[in-house]
C-alpha cells in the first residue's frame, strides 16, 4: 500500500463526499423544505398589503409610544440589525452592564410612571441573538397604560389582546410564557384600523 495510491484515493474520496454531503444533501433538504414548509423555509415572513413587513421570528426595534417595545438589543451599529446578530457578551461583574441596566430601569420608569411594581428583568437585559422577537407577559402588562394612552383605547381591550397573544410553555414545560412583540403590535394596529373605519 503506497502513499501515492492512498493520496489518489483521498482526493477522489474527498471530491465524491463534497458532492454527496456538501452539495446534494443541502439541495435535497432545500427541495423538501421548500415543498413541504415553504413559509418557514423562507424565513416565516408576514406581509401586509402585499408588502413584506417582517419575520415572525426576528425582533424589530419598536420605539413609538403607541407600540409595545421589545428587549434591548446589542447589535451594531443599530439595535435589531438582523444582518449581524450579536449579544452584548458583558459579564455579570462588568460595571458597564450594571450601568446599562440601571439606565434602562430609569428610562422605563420615566416612560411608564404609573407602573408601580418592580421592572421585568427581560426588558432591561439584552438578548443573546440581539434579535429576540419576544417579551414576557409581565413586560407587556407594564407597557399597557402607555400604549393605551397613546392610542386612546380602553386598557381592558389591550389587556385582552395581550392575553390572546400569549404563547404558553411548550408541553407545559419547555420555554417561558411569552408574547411575540411584532404580532401583538400588528393586532393593535388592526384594532385601531377597524375603529377608524367604524367611526
Amino acid at each position, binding site marked *: 500500500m503506497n502513499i501515492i495510491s492512498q493520496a489518489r484515493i483521498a482526493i477522489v474520496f474527498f471530491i465524491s463526499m463534497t458532492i454527496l454531503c456538501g452539495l446534494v444533501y443541502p439541495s435535497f*433538504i432545500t427541495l423538501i423544505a421548500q415543498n413541504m414548509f415553504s413559509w418557514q423555509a423562507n424565513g416565516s415572513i408576514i406581509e401586509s398589503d402585499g408588502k413584506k413587513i417582517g419575520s415572525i421570528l426576528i425582533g424589530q426595534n419598536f420605539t413609538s409610544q403607541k407600540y409595545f417595545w421589545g428587549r434591548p438589543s446589542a447589535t451594531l451599529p*443599530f439595535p435589531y440589525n438582523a444582518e449581524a446578530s450579536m449579544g452584548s*457578551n458583558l459579564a455579570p461583574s462588568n460595571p458597564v452592564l450594571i450601568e446599562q441596566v440601571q439606565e434602562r430601569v430609569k428610562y422605563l420608569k420615566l416612560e411608564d410612571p404609573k407602573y408601580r411594581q418592580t421592572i*421585568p428583568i427581560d426588558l432591561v437585559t439584552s438578548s443573546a441573538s440581539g434579535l429576540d422577537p419576544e417579551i414576557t407577559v409581565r413586560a407587556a402588562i407594564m407597557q399597557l397604560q402607555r400604549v393605551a394612552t397613546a392610542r386612546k383605547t380602553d386598557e381592558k381591550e389591550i389587556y385582552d389582546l395581550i392575553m390572546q397573544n400569549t404563547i404558553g410553555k411548550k408541553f407545559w414545560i419547555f420555554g417561558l410564557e411569552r408574547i411575540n412583540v411584532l404580532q401583538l403590535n400588528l393586532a393593535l394596529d388592526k384594532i385601531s384600523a377597524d375603529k377608524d373605519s367604524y367611526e
Partner: protein
Amino acid sequence: MSHLDLLQLVIYLGIVLILVKPLGWYIAQIYSGKIWGRELLNNPIEKFFYKLCGIDPQQEMSWREYTTALLLLNLVSWLSIYVLFRIQAYLPLNPEAMPDVAQDLSFNSAASFASNTGWQAYGGETTLSYISQMLSITLQGFLSAATSMCVLMALIRGLVRRETTKLGNFWVDALRSIIYIFLPIAVVYAIALSQQGVIQNFNAYVQVNLIDPFMSTSGPNVEYTTQTLPMGPVASLVAIKQISSIGAGFFNTNSCHPFANPSSVSNLLEMIGLILIPAALCYTFGYLIKQRGHGWMLLSAILIIFIPCTYLTMLAEQMGNPVFDMLGTFQQSNFEGKDLRIGIIDSAIWSATTAASANGSVNCMMDSLMPQSNFLVLLLMHFGEVIFGGVGCGLYGLIFLDIIAVFIAGLMIGRTPEYLGKKIDPYEMKIISLVTLMFPLIILLLSAYACVTDIGRNSILNPGAHGLSEIIYAFTSVFYNNGSAFAGLNVNTTFYNITIGFTMLISRYWTVIAVLALAGSMARKRYVPASIASLSTHNLTFTVLLVCVIVFMGGLTFFPTLSLGPIVEFLSLWRSYAII
C-alpha cells in the same frame, strides 16, 4: 428551582438514554459490516463508491497505514477549506457578494473545521457565502466526525483483536460512518428543524419594511425604515453541526439566532443532538468488546459527573445576578445574553452540555453566564472532554482515562495491570502520558503568554478576573476541539488566529496519532484469559475510581487557574453586593 425546571433535565436525559441502546446497537452493526444478516459490502451504494475511488474494501490496514490514510484525507480537507475561503468571491451561490476571507482567518477556520473544533473567529452571516458555508461547515461536519469515529473504531478493534497488526480499512469505516450514520440522522433532523422554522433556501437576503421606523440614537442622524433578514441553507447545516460535534454555526450567534433555533421544540431537538451519538457509543463499545457491563459502567461514570454539574449550572443561572435585585427588577435570574423562547433553564442545560460534549454550539451567550457557571463549564472541558465528549473522540479520551484507572488500581493492589484481557506495558503508559501531559502544557503556556502581552490582552472585553476566564476559555476550548467561546474576547486578530489555529491542529492530530499507535500495540498483544486475580471493571468500586481519576487528572491540573478566574469573580461580585 421548581420541580418543572428539574423535569426539563429529566426529560432531556430520559430521551437520550432511551435512544442509547437502539442507536448504539445499530452503530455496532454498521462497523461490524453486517446488519440483519446482510453483508454491507454487497450494498450497491457502497460498491459504487469503492469502484469510484479505487478502494479495495477487503484490504485491511496496519496502524501506520490507517494513520496515513486518515491524515491524507484531513490534509485534503484542510487545504480545500483554505482555498475555498480565499477565492469565495469568484464562486457561485454568493448573492451578497461576500469578499475573499483574510489569510490568517482562512488558516484559522480551515484548521477549525478540519479538526472538528468549529471555532469561529468571524460572524457567519457577514463573512461567508452560501457555497463556503456548505463546503466548509456542512461538509466537514460529516468528514471530521467520520474521522473521529474511525479512530475510535480502530482503537476498539485494537482492544478486541489478538496477535494481529490489522485494524480495518480507513476508507470503509469513513464511508460507512457517513452514509449509514451521519447522513440519515442529519436528513431527519434537517427536515424536523425546517418544519419548526429554521430557514433553508438559496435566496438573497430579504429586505422588509418596518411598521415603526426609528432614528439612530448615536452617530449621524439616520432614519431606519427597513430591516434586512439573512437567508441561506441553514437547516441542513444546523442538523449536522448538532450531531457531529463540530458545532460551528451559520450565524454569528450560532443557535441563539431565531433562524437557527426558532422554538422550544427545535431547542430540545438540537440539545438531544449534542449528546445523542456520544452517549450511544458507550453501548456500542460495550457491545463490541462483548462486555456490555463495561459500556454501561462508562456511561454511568459520565452521568455521575454530568448531572451535578448541569444541575448546579441551572441553579446558578436561576439565582442570577445579585446586583439586578438592587436595581429594582422583578427577578434577578440572569437574563443577560439569553433569548426568551429558550429560557433560563434550557440555556443552562445546553451550556453545560455543549461544554461537556465538545460540540461548542451555543444557545445563549456564554460570556454573560454567572461566574459559578463559568467555573462549571470550564471544569467540564478540563476533565478532558470525556464527559460525553465529541462523537468518537469523547469515548477514546475516556478509554485513555479508563486505562489510567486500571493502571492505578493495578499499582494499588500490586498486580500487573490488564485492560480487557490485554497487559498494559510501559509503551502504552508512555503514549498515554504524552497525550495527557500536552493538555496543561499548551493551554497554560499559551494563556500565560496571552495574559502578559498587549497583543493578547487588548482583545479582552470584560475587565478583571473575567478577562482571565475569557483567555483561559479560548485556549481550553480550542485545545479540546470544543469550539464554543466567551465571545467578548476579540479573537479575529493575527495573534489569536495563528496561535489558536496551530493549537487546534496540534492537539487534534497529536491525540489521533497517539490513539492509533496505542491501538496498533494493543492489537499485537496476546489475550490473557480472566482469572480470579483479574480486576473487575464493572462494579461500583471501579466506577468510583474512574470518576476520581477523571476529576483529579483534569480538575486538579487546572484548579489554580480556575481559582484566579471564575472563583475570584464570584467572590468579588457577592462582596460588592454585601457592601452596597
